[in-house]
């Protein structure tokens, strides 16, 4: 019986030592394995991608917000955006729907910036304008649907009360109430 315990103890020490011995050489145990799926699907051919409006009125440049004269892009690192926008009035956060980290909302006068973490880096995934700021093509709160269509073309989709223009996974929407724009949203579909 004593021998059995001695053997078990020796085994436990041996196993633990073997386990610990690997630590120095392997570095971070969180390896970034490239999966077979990843190699073949590195960039998914998502056939949902929309094309710019056929009349050419809406283009990728329309997906960049201009706030206080500074370009803010969807997918931009928040640090870069904050350097242009300055400190937010208020920042709120909640557990991210993407798993690790937090989704954050940066509140400013007249607009909000939303971020989602990508491998530890917060990126801008939405910008909502509620007052005082126009799109680069001059649409602002209070403008009519006719003016929106005049500036951005007829290649839009209506979702509820939103008029939505999109290219790939990014979009620009205008929330309409009584034929007036009451909110402008830039969105990046990453969820």
């Amino acid at each position: 019986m004593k021998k059995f315990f001695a053997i078990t103890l020796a085994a436990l020490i041996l196993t633990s030592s073997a386990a610990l011995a690997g630590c120095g050489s392997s570095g971070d145990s969180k390896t970034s394995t490239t999966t077979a799926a990843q190699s073949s699907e590195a960039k998914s051919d998502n056939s949902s991608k929309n094309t710019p409006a056929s009349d050419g009125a809406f283009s990728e440049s329309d997906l960049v917000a201009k706030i206080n004269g500074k370009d803010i892009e969807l997918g931009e690192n928040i640090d870069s955006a904050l350097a242009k926008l300055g400190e937010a009035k208020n920042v709120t956060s909640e557990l991210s729907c993407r798993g690790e980290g937090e989704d954050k909302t940066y509140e400013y006068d007249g607009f909000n910036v939303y971020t989602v973490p990508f491998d530890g880096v917060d990126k801008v995934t939405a910008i909502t304008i509620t007052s005082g700021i126009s799109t680069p093509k001059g649409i602002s709160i209070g403008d009519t649907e006719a003016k929106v269509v005049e500036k951005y073309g007829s290649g839009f989709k209506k979702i509820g009360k939103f008029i939505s223009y999109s290219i790939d996974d990014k979009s620009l929407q205008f929330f309409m109430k009584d034929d007036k724009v009451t909110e402008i949203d830039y969105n990046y579909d990453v969820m």
Partner: protein
Amino acid sequence: MRAKTVIKQSVKVLSLFIAVIISACVLQEFVLCNADHNRERIKGFDLENKNSLDVVFMGASEVYSDLAPGYAYKNYGYTSYLYASQASSIMSYKFQLQELLKKQNPKLIVIELNSAVYANDDNVTKEENVRNYVDNTHLSFEKVDFVNSYTDKNRVEFFFPIIKYHDAWKSLGENMGMISTIAANRFRGYNYLKGMMNQTVIFHSSQRTMNEFLADANDKKPLTELSEQKLRELLQFCKDNNLKNVVFARFPHIVVRRTYDRCERSNMVEQIVSEYGFDYLNFEKNDEGISIDYNNDFYNLDHFNVYGQKKFTDYISRYIRDKYGVTGSTLSDSLKKEWETASDYYDAYYNYSDALIRENKQKELDESIVNNPEFKQYIKES
């Protein structure tokens, strides 16, 4: 004499070898592993008595935050389990269903398919997401098949996770709560919360919600190629195995513009699921009977807090009873006792969560909370 010595030596060597293997298994199982809420939940499922569950809910975090098995048992009589992992990937759903069917033959299996509507393949192929489930399963032919189809690198780390988590001893202190919880569950033979996990927060969306438009939103957006392929493989498996007790679902979310496209992909999922002859229960789109308060019932865009969890458990329990005839089974005395205890723990969980929310104290509550002295004050024995 010489032969005797050789035999004696051989026995010693063999004993040492066996002891090393056993020690490695014990370490891999309890210590040198990723001891988190996913592991506790998946391991907890393995502890359930064979064929003792009336319903199994499978999927990602929506499943373990949106439903309460203890509450469902107390009020509707059926036993259930939340067989889910964080940000789970559609890649592993067929394998997960195979594992589920080895242990249980429920009256109903509800598979939540949020993992099929991700915008891109990052979340689908992300190793951490896959590992949240796969690392907590035993070595089996099905696991080997899955891993071989998933990756061609470091496969051995999936088969023997101790290799990947060999340095988990460094965080032994911070993981000790969950390690001891998992060990206690094993010793007891079941867990109390049946997979539940939630946050003590009331979420207020600062972005305009779109849920009111969803009933009329019928446009479809294609899934990523990989998601569709894996979804179809899962459906084909269900069809080939004539699984009549499987339904698919989409649970409610707060939908804002930046998450709206998932709804259109969900419409596409519905079309694909129906091609294979299965039901798709879209509770996100058809939410009128749930009485959701979108300003009070979520802890973030995608997950109910305990208030929403209770409402949704009520709703889905009535729904599966009325549509699929799911009611409780006759339980042995020991199982009855176990489920009554689970029900008591749910009550404590709800009341403790409610108190924390009222005090504005944000906390993540998983099974390890049962060891918290503050929580224990809320437990009333049956």
